[in-house]
């Protein structure tokens, strides 16, 4: 009997758990569409998480916190951008460096903020609608960041496929030599894309620390940045599919928390493996179709570009 009553809260929690993944994955999707592979998502999320949290604690303003988190994420990403775009460093190595650096830096910044509680964002309440059985809370009882993440999906889609700037960005990702020959500023466009990716990762991280948990702990993203990277592949670089993927992973995360509540006796550590194993599984399922990946992946993904060469 109880099981049915649980579905509402589980569904609501699923959308919340999906939100940080959705922010980070949408950002990285735009970055990769411009032909850049930034493996530093985890590091940028952590820096965003700690900066947003610290500012929110000190100013008492969640809006300022999220703004600073986006700026901090973009600032971290700019390190990656300078190294890979202007100093022609290997993107894989630099992305790894960004994550290692972000883990350390966020722990350093955050050491005075461990254990401080923060009030999460207020939840929407629409009389009647929020009280609907099963879907009420999930659809009409979330906070503003959850809705923002979902709203970003059509925006990113429209930008990429319905605007001139989006077309240019995709052209740069598909063939940077041709785009350069046509007079487009390849490096400038990629720089802006990387900054956007950083800002989105920062927001995703800040959602975790300021709203979802809400508190700061070292390494609190626990691999979500990497899962977001996998989601971009899973989505075959399409925003709407990235959203479905994020919901799927939100569901797996929540499922893992509720399995024990349903009276199934499995050690908690083994259940905690589920999101990571699920990531491997979906990567395998999507990647095995080589033709499909080749058709959808930006052709210049991960390749360096030097205008004089």
């Amino acid at each position, binding site marked *: 009997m109880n099981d049915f009553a649980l579905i509402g809260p589980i569904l609501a929690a699923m959308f919340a758990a999906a939100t940080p993944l959705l922010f980070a994955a949408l950002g990285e999707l735009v970055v990769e569409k411009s032909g850049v592979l930034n493996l530093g998502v985890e590091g940028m999320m952590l820096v965003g998480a700690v900066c947003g949290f610290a500012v929110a604690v000190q100013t008492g303003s969640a809006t300022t916190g999220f703004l600073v988190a986006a700026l901090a994420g973009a600032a971290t990403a700019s390190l990656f951008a300078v190294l890979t775009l202007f100093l022609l460093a290997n993107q894989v190595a630099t992305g790894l460096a960004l994550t290692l650096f972000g883990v350390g830096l966020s722990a350093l910044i955050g050491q005075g903020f461990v254990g401080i509680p923060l009030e999460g964002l207020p939840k929407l309440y629409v009389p009647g609608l929020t009280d609907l059985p099963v879907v009420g809370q999930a659809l009409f009882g979330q906070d503003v960041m959850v809705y923002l993440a979902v709203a970003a999906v059509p925006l990113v889609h429209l930008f990429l496929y319905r605007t001139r700037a989006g077309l240019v960005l995709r052209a740069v990702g598909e063939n940077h030599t041709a785009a350069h020959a046509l007079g487009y500023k390849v490096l400038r466009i990629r720089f802006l894309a990387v900054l956007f990716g950083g800002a989105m990762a920062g927001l995703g991280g800040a959602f975790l620390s300021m709203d979802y948990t809400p508190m700061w702990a070292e390494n609190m993203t626990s691999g979500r940045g990497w899962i977001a990277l*996998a989601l971009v592949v899973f989505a075959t670089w399409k925003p709407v599919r990235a959203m479905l993927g994020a919901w799927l992973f939100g569901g797996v995360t929540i499922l893992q928390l509720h399995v024990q509540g349903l009276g199934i006796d499995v050690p908690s550590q083994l259940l905690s*493996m589920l999101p990571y194993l699920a990531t491997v599984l979906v990567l395998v399922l999507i990647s095995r179709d080589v033709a499909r990946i080749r058709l959808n992946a930006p052709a210049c993904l991960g390749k360096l570009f030097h205008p004089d060469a």
Partner: protein
Amino acid sequence: MSFIRLEPRGQASKTMVYVTPLLAVALTLLSGFILFLAMGFDPLKALYSFFVAPVTSVRGVGELVVKATPLVLCAVGLAIGFRANVWNIGAEGQLTLGAITGGGLALAFYGEGGWWLLPLMVIGGAIGGAVWAAVPAFLRLRFNASEILTSLMLNYVALLLLNYLVHGPFRDPDGFAFPESRLFEADATLPVLWAGTRVHLGALFALLAVAGGWLLIARTFIGFQIKVIGLTPAAAGYAGFDQKRIVWLTLLLSGALAGIAGMGEVAGPIGQVTAGISPGYGYTAIIVAFLGRLHPVGILLAALLMALSFIGGEAAQIAMGLPKAITGVFQGMLLFFLLASDVLIRYRVRFGARRAAA
């Protein structure tokens, strides 16, 4: 046009290959100086207590070797893979698996061991790490899945598995429910090589890995194939090199070495299986591999430097109350500066506007 330009060199600079790591270290120290100043510490004193004080005693030098041991073992394997564009970033998980299988053998034969137990544990650790690395190899070759993401995901899975084991099957039956195993018996513990320190037999394994890695890279046909695949995969294809075999080989090898490193930690300085066996050796080994120029001898030097950042972080924490997290910041900065200055290997920096082409 732009004031500063990069001009491609006709040939990669041999000098810069050796200069840029030193440049990166210098820039890291400079940034450390500024960072300590900004945090309100006496920067010279902080740098001294971080990078010098820890190695002013015999025990300190010994600790340096102890920390460098797993870094060398992991990084040599990773570097061979990186040379062939096989991006195994799962050394942390492979190390953890080696600790689980190697340590599991020590616990399985608790009280009934003999001279054969340690060799068995080394083999067990190597197999554990290799099996963990075989998963991304299989998934890349069979399903085209990125080994970067799969090997990384398995790090989290391995850590959770270790955590489960020390809370469950591996837990010391007389240990008052602490999440740790029994202390290993003498026949399951690596002998100390240097009295007065904790330097153990694993250090010898690390040196063997350096020598073996160098032989493989510089003196075998497989090493040549790895080099060609890394530089121009297409040429390797025309030459008929079996790229699948190289992916298998590099991943299994790096997994086995990382597994031995993990086994060496539990059978060496730790002496039991606990939930925290590595402060991130597997991740730091990535930095070590790059800093060492993907060359075994360079890796040996880079590992000692990175080991210093670990013990320096601990020492500075005790001496000056500096946060331990600063170790990670230093390590990250060092890799950043190295990658940034590496541009000097293939490009010259030119100042002034570009002359108009004739």
